């Protein structure tokens, strides 16, 4: 399949979770507490897309699946897209657009506070994701975009700090994040030791 067609396909696949959520919301299928359901769903999908994005390079190097490489940017942009929707849903459905309470929430809850640097970095990566920006930033582009590792760690902490009745989600996200970051650490060590 030509790259353009794949790009179009991935674009529409990326929108499917949102369409699914919209279908559930308009058909009253989100249960008794749709506010919470929507925020959780969007947050989960932001994390899934973050993991898809991080999986592209290992898939290329370990499984010879290089065809995903040209689509990494779109996967990253979908991470940003769902993270922004997640945050927007939190403002509208949990805080009821009461921004004065947001300030106090931010100060008091570390799991909310750490989303601020994560969101700023995600936005920075999104804004600098174009070809033009890549050219303009040169070598700096690579070091800036390495901050996705930090974003992944912050996202995982955001989940871990909210554990209540079960470690399941924190464990699954944790293992996947650790594997995708761990393989890079392994490559880095091997490069330095010349192995």
């Amino acid at each position, binding site marked *: 399949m030509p790259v353009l067609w794949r790009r179009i396909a991935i674009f529409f696949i990326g929108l499917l979770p949102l369409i699914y959520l919209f279908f559930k*919301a308009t058909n009253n299928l989100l*249960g*008794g*507490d*749709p*506010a*919470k359901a*929507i925020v959780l769903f969007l947050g989960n999908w932001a994390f899934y897309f973050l993991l898809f994005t991080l999986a592209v390079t290992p898939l290329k190097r370990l499984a010879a699946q290089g065809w995903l490489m040209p689509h990494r940017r779109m996967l990253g942009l979908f991470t940003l897209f769902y993270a922004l929707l997640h945050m927007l849903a939190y403002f*509208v*459905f*949990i805080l*009821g657009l009461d921004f004065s*309470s947001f300030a*106090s*929430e931010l100060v*008091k*809850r570390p*799991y909310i506070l750490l989303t601020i640097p994560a969101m700023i970095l995600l936005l920075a990566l999104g804004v600098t994701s174009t070809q033009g920006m890549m050219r303009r930033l040169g070598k700096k582009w690579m070091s800036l975009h390495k901050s996705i590792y930090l974003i992944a760690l912050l996202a995982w902490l955001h989940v871990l*700090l*909210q*554990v*209540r*009745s*079960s*470690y*399941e989600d924190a*464990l699954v996200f944790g293992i996947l994040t650790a594997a995708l970051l761990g393989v890079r650490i392994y490559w880095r060590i091997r490069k330095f030791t010349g192995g």
Partner: protein
Amino acid sequence: MLIIKPDAIPSSEITPESIYLARRQFMRSAFAAGVLGAGTLASPALLADPSYKAAEASSSGPEWLNRQIATASADKQKLSETLTPYGIVTGHNNFYEFGYDKTDPANKSKHFKPHPWKVEIAGEVAKPGIYHLEDLLQGQALEERVYRLRCVEAWSMVIPWIGFPLASLIKRFEPNSKAKYVSFVTLEDQQQFPAQKSALSTIDWPYREGLRMDEAMHPLTILAVGLYGKTLPNQNGAPLRLVVPWKYGFKNIKSIVKIEFTERQPQTSWNQIAPGEYGFFANVNPSVDHPRWSQAKERRLPSGLLSPNIIPSKMFNGYADQVASLYSGMDLKKYY
């Protein structure tokens, strides 16, 4: 001779046909149950509520309990807030023995068997023993109680329970002077409660809760056996659960198999998991945050997309005039 001719009947005196028909329907079913005269559950207008019909349609439960529930008297405290629909009351639950999602209790409780059921009464009482549910309920006058339920997760409902004051049960077992607290234990059974097998759960099964004696004896504290005029669905804690309306929902322990009277404050499940987040008292208090979220407001379910229905939470969940005296002189920031 003064002849007073009545004016036209004021419209306030005219019973709408729907209520009139619902009343007839109610009388018929009450008669069928053989409890005509005794049964005065919920006002006829309430019985016309589709939620009562939904409860009627999906109710099971043994005949003896259905008969007793049909005799329940109507709520004396009129709560003007809108009842949470039956589908949400029975479809959005925290009952971690069945799973972590809000829909797990409804989906995974089909094979739970609440009958026959036994409850162990233990500790500082004159009459300890293992009692059948029938014996515990014998002679208890059931009542409908429409209560707010405020979950510690900042959502809330309004539920018409059927139950009886815990005090009237406690008195029967004659607790002695050492009985300062009452502790409750939920059933532990991995066959019936699939999530009790999970290695990732933070809860050390079985689930435990407790009350101070004066809280347990308070007239607002009830043991519920039904809701919306029918037996409790499995996901709501069948066959017997605690309801303490001025405390966060997790105090309302479900599917109780043991009630023990103790001299010392009992260990309770959420307090054991995170003592900094869930106190023993767990009174609804909008001015004391959960460390991870504010308790100032709540989402009254059903919370819609266009209207999230966010309302301010009230001290003691709006029951302050009845229960605040229990805690006079206590620092509620310290004893949260």
